[in-house]
């Protein structure tokens, strides 16, 4: 760190010192990890180049397995992106005070992961050169068009929802002069934190956090509908919309927890990501593991009870057939492990939530695999069924690149953006403690407001 910068940092408050340090100080291990991730991402770019050059024949896809890893990753990554927006918006709207230190890292996941999800169907296209046809010849009857519209809206609103609450922090960095003065002068957009600006900011955040909720719900509903609108066994189901939204939030919470554990360690944020945060988010994860079981049980029981032959082929392929391993691993990851760990206070710790979070993410990836592949290889037209899918090196490389690309982008972002919202913590210290006391007093009979004020 340069001399001037460390002096400037020393003059700031403790919150600012801790949270701005990663912006000006980078460890060696950061560079090593970033290099490895960048290499993996470049390898994936090469794999995609080969695919564009020779054709989708380089994948393991075939007839009837028309969709594979790319579509699985599409659903998975867009699902993860529900982390930030929904969680942070819902916590803001419900005035949950413990949200203050976790909203920023969550919203950042949303915005950065959404590219990697949205790009998957383009990678999956036979003719990416004709991408603009979706605008030139748009057919609104296609669920894919619904998807383009809702993901577009979602992307725009999430980016605004990340950026607007970041303004006061960007202004703090600009005023401190610790890093790239021009960049932050531009990004802070003239924000001076006057009482008038602050009031407007809060109002915009309030409106945004309500708007993004229905948009986020629509995104994963529509992704579920892509499958549900076809007549295929185990896809053609009305539960898919809500099931996908629930699954998306579930994997999103898992992603936040994993990110929080890593950030806490890497940047020494023990004071910001406290045990209480892991406890609360762990309870939320527990709730969703139960919801996941409920939805999955409802889906499979309905298919089983009807006993339609086409459905039953896909059903048994998952439960006892060739897909039994991914199916039961999914049950383990999405239900057994998180339920066991999150139902006890002693394991709702950073370590416990980290294990549960990883298990849920693996389980949720497998859930999408279990939706896409077993139905694809078991079409209704039985005598045509060939039923094999082995992903090729191209698909696996692109998947690895997607994961590493996202993590790399997130790491780089932590070098430019305070990963915990400085002004919201400050606001919490200065105003909210009193506000919450007043609010609680207000809930009590005889509106104890007056008493509280008198006592003070």
């Amino acid at each position: 760190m340069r001399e001037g910068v460390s002096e400037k940092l020393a003059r700031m408050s403790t919150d600012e010192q801790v949270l701005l340090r990663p912006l000006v100080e980078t460890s060696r291990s950061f560079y090593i990890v970033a290099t490895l991730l960048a290499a993996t991402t470049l390898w994936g770019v090469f794999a995609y180049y080969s695919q564009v050059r020779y054709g989708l024949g380089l994948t393991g896809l075939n007839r009837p397995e028309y969709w594979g890893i790319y579509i699985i990753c599409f659903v998975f990554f867009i699902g993860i992106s529900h982390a930030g927006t929904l969680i942070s918006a819902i916590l803001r709207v419900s005035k949950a005070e413990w949200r203050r230190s976790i909203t920023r890292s969550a919203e950042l996941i949303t915005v950065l992961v959404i590219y990697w999800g949205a790009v998957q169907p383009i990678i999956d296209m036979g003719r990416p050169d004709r991408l603009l046809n979706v605008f030139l010849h748009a057919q609104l009857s296609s669920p894919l068009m619904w998807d383009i519209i809702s993901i577009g809206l979602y992307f725009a609103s999430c980016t605004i929802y990340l950026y607007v609450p970041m303004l006061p922090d960007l202004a703090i960095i600009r005023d401190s002069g610790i890093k790239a003065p021009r960049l932050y002068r531009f990004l802070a957009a003239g924000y001076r934190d006057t009482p008038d600006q602050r009031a407007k900011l809060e109002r915009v955040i309030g409106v945004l956090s309500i708007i993004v909720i229905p948009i986020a719900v629509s995104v994963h509903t529509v992704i579920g509908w892509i499958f549900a609108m076809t007549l295929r066994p185990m896809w053609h189901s009305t539960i898919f919309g809500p099931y996908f939204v629930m699954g998306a939030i579930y994997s999103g919470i898992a992603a936040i927890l994993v990110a929080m554990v890593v950030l806490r360690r890497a940047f020494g944020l023990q004071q910001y990501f406290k045990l209480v945060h892991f406890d609360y988010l762990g309870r939320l994860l527990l709730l969703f593991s139960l919801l996941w079981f409920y939805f999955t049980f409802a889906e499979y029981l309905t298919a089983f009870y009807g006993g339609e032959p086409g459905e039953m082929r896909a059903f048994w392929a998952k439960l006892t057939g060739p897909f039994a391993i991914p199916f039961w691993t999914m049950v383990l990851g999405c239900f057994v492990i998180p339920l066991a760990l999150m139902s006890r206070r002693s394991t709702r710790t950073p370590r416990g939530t980290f294990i549960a979070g990883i298990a849920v993410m693996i389980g949720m990836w497998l859930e999408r695999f279990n939706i896409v592949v077993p139905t694809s290889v078991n079409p209704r037209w039985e005598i045509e069924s060939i039923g094999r899918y082995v992903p090729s090196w191209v698909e696996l490389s692109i998947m690895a690149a997607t994961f590493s690309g996202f993590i790399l982008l997130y790491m780089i972002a932590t070098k430019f953006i305070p990963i915990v919202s400085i002004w919201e913590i400050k606001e919490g210290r200065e105003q909210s403690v009193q506000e919450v006391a007043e609010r609680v007093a207000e809930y009590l009979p005889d509106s104890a407001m007056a008493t509280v004020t008198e006592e003070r």
Partner: protein
Amino acid sequence: MARWGMVIDLDRCTGCAACEVACKSENNIATVSPEQAEMGRAISWMRVMAELEGDFPDTTMQFYPRPCMHCDNPPCIRVCPVGATYIDDEGIVGQIYARCIGCRYCANACPYMVKYFNWYGPEWSQSERQHLNPDVSVRPNGVIEKCTFCHHRLQKAREDARADQRESREEDYQPACAEVCPTGAIVFGDLDNPSHRVAELKEDPRVMRLMEELGTQPKVYYLRPRE
């Protein structure tokens, strides 16, 4: 307005697959290597499916020639984001190869699995190249293709009829599979025109359609085997 359709008499089908070969040759369908075919990437707009019935040794082989069903209510069309697959006024379901973006949604939506994807660009040997049908466009890498009821023959039939200044007749427009079938199992024509054989055959008591219960309203009818 004609409503083109097909009736296939399963009693007459011997499973010779002449329809398959004629279709490939007529429509410039690219051949793929045995390894690719093994992976499930062969393209066959018309396909003779075989089903073994009964237990050994009392078994019979039942053959089902399966072209595109040219549904009146085609599930493939609604899901296409760019309108590359369409149904025309005369009920033929077609594909615009130059517009298709290769998302394969239609292929997933089709319950009959008749939409084929070009996993690689087509390759022909020099000798094959000389036999390509100039009336049918070849398909590039990365798009979906499908049976068109030999739509190009309809255009030719119309032009011929106009040149001779007469109404077009049933025999003017026959797809390659129907033309070549040695037992006459495949009958093609206008389902709404009483002078065409299909109009009568589709009223046969043996008639059935594939997966009719899905509401796709296929225009390919089958006559069940008698015994």
